[in-house]
Structures are given as structure tokens and as C-alpha cells.
């Protein structure tokens, strides 16, 4: 009668207080430059890191993508992480290390992320790692300090929610569209207080990269946790990765992972079902990920909405510089960005390249692979040449223009078609206007210079 969530939770619960708060064991703690507040808290109290060998540092938020750091303040953030990890005996994948990249790309890629583990990181997109069947969630700086000091975290068990997706995706439609579709339906706080398990034939049919995109975006629908039960796809992905178990240990691991799937009669507090074939390519038009519509639709008209809803729509359209009722495909973009922990894995780059091959972009754009390993692989496949020949910049790995901390940003008032996760006001830079969509849809916008349905551009091509 237990769900995947229950099994993961129970196997990490050290104790539970009468008020319902569980003390959980942390198998992997990933830290990045933003963890400086937590290391400072530790230093204030003179505490050591409890389990340095279960803690890994990754330079990503401030990582330069084109040469040297853009400012002394940015260089200092990277240096601070390096010195904090070094003084506590923690491995750190810094600039120059071939394992460097975005923490949520690097964890799975290096085999640090495994099914059945509990993984935390001071970043809300930690839900990404749930794609492998891990219990993974983002925490704040106070909690990061707590994990550093004790290798445990206090947490109340969330409610269990299941999103079941049956059927098959149409060509040019995938995990990003699915995620934006359910968030548009339930709202950006729709899964608040819940851990989401994704299930159904369409989810099982996704590659690990697609599953990571789906779980990554859980937080944009309010869910701190996203997860998918491990299966053959998961096990094949993990096998042979640098930090993954091998030999007899691997055999025991696989046996343990095979028992993780929820029981057939397990109950969920909430369920939602979707049909994959009914999902079209989706773009956002507003300033919240819930402001999402199929590319064939038009910008909402506040005059046709209840006053309750109209307030937000008016504010969002004013910020975005859009006209009510305007077809989404008529919205011109100034630039594009392909990158982030959501959509910068090898499969994402292949999907964008499949659309761009042999074509020229009408607007400038930046492509930042999710990790140095992804970058190397893409270059080996010749994808970098496709991007360059299309007129896009091929840069280094990091969070880059998704969060605009490293100096890569969108200028005020400029409109960017972006594979990232947040279309918040000012997210990509003060006054920047962000439209979220899949890598294939960003490639289509680059070619035409406006929001575009990618499906006709894929005719006669393999959608990768």
C-alpha cells in the first residue's frame, strides 16, 4: 500500500517527532556558490562538515561562459566556494574541471545521483534528480547549514500527488510542453504541499533527459518534489557512470531499486491525468509559468476575464509589452537562449540542432550547454557547428542567462525565447521579457524571428 514517496521517505527517516516532523538522512548534499551564507553560519558556530565525502561542490550560478568572470564580485563568489569546500575537505567541480556544469546536470551525469537516494541542494530545481527515482528537494541556506553540520534535514512528509500521462507525444512535442501544460491547468501553486510522482506510458516513454526536464519543472507548479519510479531506462542510464556503484555493489543496488516502484494499490491524496497526444507545443505569454498556452492560441484578453483574473493578466501584458488577443505566433523576439538545468542536456541540444541544421537564425542567440561533458559530447557530434552556422553563440557551461548572475543577461525591454524555467519579471535581467518553451520551439523562433509552431519546420526531418 506504499507509494514511491513512502518507500523513499521510510528508508531515510531516522526519527519522527510527535508533531509529525521527520529527521531524514541525506545521502548527497550538493553545494554551489550561493551556499556562502550557510558556510558562514557554520563558521560562526565553529562547526565542521559532518560528512565531507557525501558533499560535492559545483560552480554553476556564477560560472563564466565566455572566458574570465565578468566582474570581481562574480570571481569572488567562485573563489569563496572553492575555499569553503577546500577547507572542509569537500570535492569541488570548479572552472577548468571537466566535470563542471550545472549542478542538476552534473549530479546525474557523474553518477552522484542514484535511484533510492535522498538528495538536497540549496536550489529549488533539485527536484530534477527525482527523475531517477530519488527523493530530491531544494532547501534554503539555514537548512544547508544544518545539513552541512549534521548530514540530516527536518522535513514534514508532503502529501502524495500523481500525474498520469498516457498516450504518445506528437513529433516536436515533449517533456517541456507536458510540464507547462499541467502547470497552466493547475496553476503555479497547484501542487503546493505535495510531492509529485509522474507516471503513465508517455512518462515511461521519455528518455532520462526528458524525465529530468519534467521533474525539474515540478517547482514551477508549486511542488518541491518531483519523481519517477526507476525502470530499465533509469538503470541503463546510471550504469557505468563515474560515481555509480559497480560489481557486487551494483547488483545489490539494482535489486534495491527494483523494489522502489509504488505498490499497485497505493493511494494518492490527489491525482491528475493527461493525454500526451492532445498536448501541442506550448509557450508562455506572461510573468508566471502558469501563463502558458499552445502556440496556436492568442494572447489572453483581460476584458473577457473575471476582474479577479484580469488584474494579473493586465499587469503581465503590460510588463511583457503584448496586445490582448494578438496571435502568439505574431510576437516578435529579439534574441534566443538555449540553456539551463531544465533544457541543456545533450538531447535538448540535439532537438534544437535538428531544427536549426542548414538554416540561419534571424535573431542573435546564446547556447550554453548544461555541463562541460555535454559540451564535449555535442562538439563530438558536430552540434556546435550547426549552432555556429545558424549564427548562434556557442558558449561555456553554467546557469548563464537563465538566472543572469554571471553577467549573461537580457537587456531591459528585450524579448527572449528561452528554454529556461522562469519567466518572472527581471529574471533574465531587469526589464527582460522571457517566453518559456522547448529547445525545438526556441530554435523555430530563432529561424523566423517570432514565436513559431515548430511542427511544420520539422517536416521531412528527424525530430531528434
Amino acid at each position: 500500500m506504499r507509494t514511491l514517496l513512502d518507500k523513499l521517505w521510510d528508508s531515510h527517516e531516522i526519527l519522527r517527532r510527535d508533531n509529525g516532523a521527520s529527521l531524514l538522512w541525506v545521502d548527497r548534499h550538493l553545494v554551489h556558490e550561493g551556499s556562502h551564507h550557510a558556510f558562514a553560519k557554520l563558521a560562526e558556530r565553529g562547526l565542521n562538515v559532518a560528512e565531507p565525502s557525501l558533499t560535492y561542490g559545483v560552480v554553476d550560478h556564477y560560472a563564466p561562459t565566455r572566458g574570465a568572470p565578468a566582474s570581481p564580485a562574480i570571481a569572488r563568489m567562485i573563489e569563496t566556494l572553492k575555499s569553503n569546500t577546500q577547507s572542509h575537505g569537500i570535492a569541488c567541480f570548479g572552472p577548468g574541471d571537466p566535470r563542471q556544469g550545472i549542478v542538476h546536470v552534473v549530479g546525474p551525469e557523474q553518477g552522484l545521483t542514484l535511484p533510492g537516494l535522498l538528495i538536497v541542494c540549496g536550489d529549488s530545481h533539485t527536484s530534477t534528480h527525482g527523475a531517477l527515482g530519488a527523493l530530491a528537494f531544494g532547501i534554503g541556506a539555514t537548512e544547508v547549514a544544518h545539513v552541512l553540520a549534521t548530514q540530516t534535514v527536518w522535513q514534514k512528509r508532503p502529501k502524495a500527488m500523481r500525474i498520469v500521462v498516457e498516450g504518445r507525444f506528437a513529433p516536436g512535442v515533449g517533456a517541456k510542453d507536458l510540464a507547462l501544460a499541467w502547470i497552466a491547468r493547475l496553476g503555479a501553486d497547484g501542487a503546493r504541499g505535495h510531492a509529485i510522482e509522474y507516471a503513465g506510458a508517455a512518462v515511461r516513454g521519455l528518455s532520462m533527459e526528458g524525465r529530468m526536464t519534467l521533474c525539474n519543472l515540478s517547482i514551477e507548479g508549486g511542488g518541491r518534489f518531483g519523481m519517477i519510479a526507476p525502470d530499465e531506462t533509469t538503470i541503463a542510464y546510471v550504469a557505468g557512470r563515474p560515481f555509480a556503484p559497480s560489481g557486487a555493489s551494483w547488483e545489490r543496488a539494482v535489486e534495491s531499486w527494483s523494489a522502489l516502484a509504488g505498490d499497485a494499490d497505493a493511494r494518492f491524496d490527489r491525482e491528475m491525468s493527461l493525454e500526451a497526444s492532445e498536448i501541442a507545443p506550448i509557450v508562455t505569454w506572461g510573468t508566471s509559468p502558469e501563463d502558458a498556452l499552445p502556440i496556436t492560441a492568442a494572447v489572453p484578453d483581460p476584458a473577457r476575464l473575471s476582474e479577479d483574473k484580469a488584474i494579473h493578466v493586465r499587469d503581465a501584458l503590460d510588463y511583457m509589452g503584448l496586445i490582448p488577443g494578438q496571435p502568439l505566433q505574431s510576437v516578435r523576439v529579439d534574441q534566443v537562449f538555449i540553456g539551463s538545468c531544465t533544457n541543456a542536456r545533450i538531447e535538448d541540444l540535439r532537438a534544437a540542432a535538428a531544427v536549426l541544421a542548414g538554416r540561419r537564425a534571424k535573431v542573435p542567440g546564446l547556447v550554453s550547454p548544461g555541463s562541460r561533458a555535454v559540451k564535449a559530447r555535442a562538439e563530438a557530434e558536430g552540434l556546435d557547428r550547426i549552432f555556429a552556422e545558424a549564427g548562434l553563440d556557442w558558449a561555456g557551461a553554467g546557469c548563464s542567462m537563465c538566472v543572469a548572475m554571471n553577467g549573461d543577461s537580457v537587456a531591459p525591454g528585450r524579448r527572449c525565447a528561452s528554454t529556461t524555467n522562469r519567466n518572472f519579471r527581471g529574471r533574465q535581467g531587469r526589464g527582460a521579457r522571457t517566453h518559456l518553451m522547448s529547445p525545438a520551439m526556441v530554435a523555430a523562433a530563432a529561424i523566423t524571428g517570432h514565436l513559431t509552431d515548430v511542427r511544420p519546420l520539422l517536416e521531412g526531418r528527424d525530430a531528434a
Partner: protein
Amino acid sequence: MSGWTRHTGTAIALDLESVDTDQLIPARFMSTPRSEGYGQFLLHDLRRDTDGTMRPEVPLNRWPEASVLVTRRNFGSGSSREAAVYALVDFGIRTVIAPSFGDIFASNAVNNGVLPARVAPDLTAEMIARIGAGAVPAEVDLAARTLSVAGLSTGFDLDPVWREKLINGWDDIDLTRAHGTEIAAFRDRLSATRTWAFPAGGTAG
């Protein structure tokens, strides 16, 4: 962090929904040491023109004594940056009243002594209407789980674990270290039964 049970202060309204943590503190300020004070960064781009001039019509600029913020749904969504809470705390905000909060934000708020009080959307809308661009007296009683703003009194939703924590002002690290024996026993059991859960090349013993 010190605990508290009652707060008497001044409430202002922020008539927006989904005020995410990127708005609460834009990323470009996050390399600043906390010792410099984060209150100046709170909702920076909403409070200031692009040339840095304070917008006088913004209630946060008019009422620097504000300690209670009433706003709309999905407050604190997005990034886990605790700096968003530091900005609220350093400005002087002790309680945020909204129909819903981002889960990670709410947890961070409690860890810094800030109450994320959930109140039904019709009531928060009424409070926002009554406050307008002004400032009104506000009272919060954590023990009774009640609050009163602009003459409207109501209960509020808060996880009992969080209420206990706000009242006691507990430091979790001390609380957890008191369980050192149980944690060590759990780890021993893990390293005996789940060797695969330790990174290859790491120490399992």
C-alpha cells in the same frame, strides 16, 4: 533566532499575485555579504526607477515602519534563495499574510522568525482594499493563531511544527545534535546494508 508569540505593528498592502523570490531580491544583489543589510534590496526593482530613484507611490517606500505585509496568492514562489527572507527581515517585516506561499519560501521564513500566515483569498482581498496605499495597525497572536488587520480579525493557517518553532525560536542544529546517537546508529546501519548508497571512491565506513 529568538521566539515570539505576539506582534503589534503596522500593515501595508502589496496588491500583486505571485510575487516570486526573484522580485523579492533580484539575483544581482546576492553576492553582497549579509552584514551590509538586505533591506535596501527588498523588491528593489518595484521600489526604484531604473536610475535608482525611490518611487514615492510605493507603500514600502512610504511606510518604512511596516512590519506586516498583506498580499495575494503564491507569494515567495520560485527560487529557494533565503536572501528573499533576509531582505524582508532586514526591512523589518515580521509577518506576511497571503492565501498561499511557495513551500521553500515559507520554510525559509520560519527559519528566520517570519510568519507566513495563510488567510483565505476573499479576506486578504478585503484587507488589501481597506489598506489601499495606506498603513494600518496590525496584531498577530501566534499562540491563538489569530490576527487582526484594518479592523478585520481572523484565524490563519500555519503548520503546527512551524508555529512551535516560531514561538520557541529553536535552533535546529542544537535540536538535531541532541539526537547524535540515533543519527550515528542510522549511519552504521546504512553503511552495513546499503554500501551502494555511498559514492564509489568515497568512504562507506
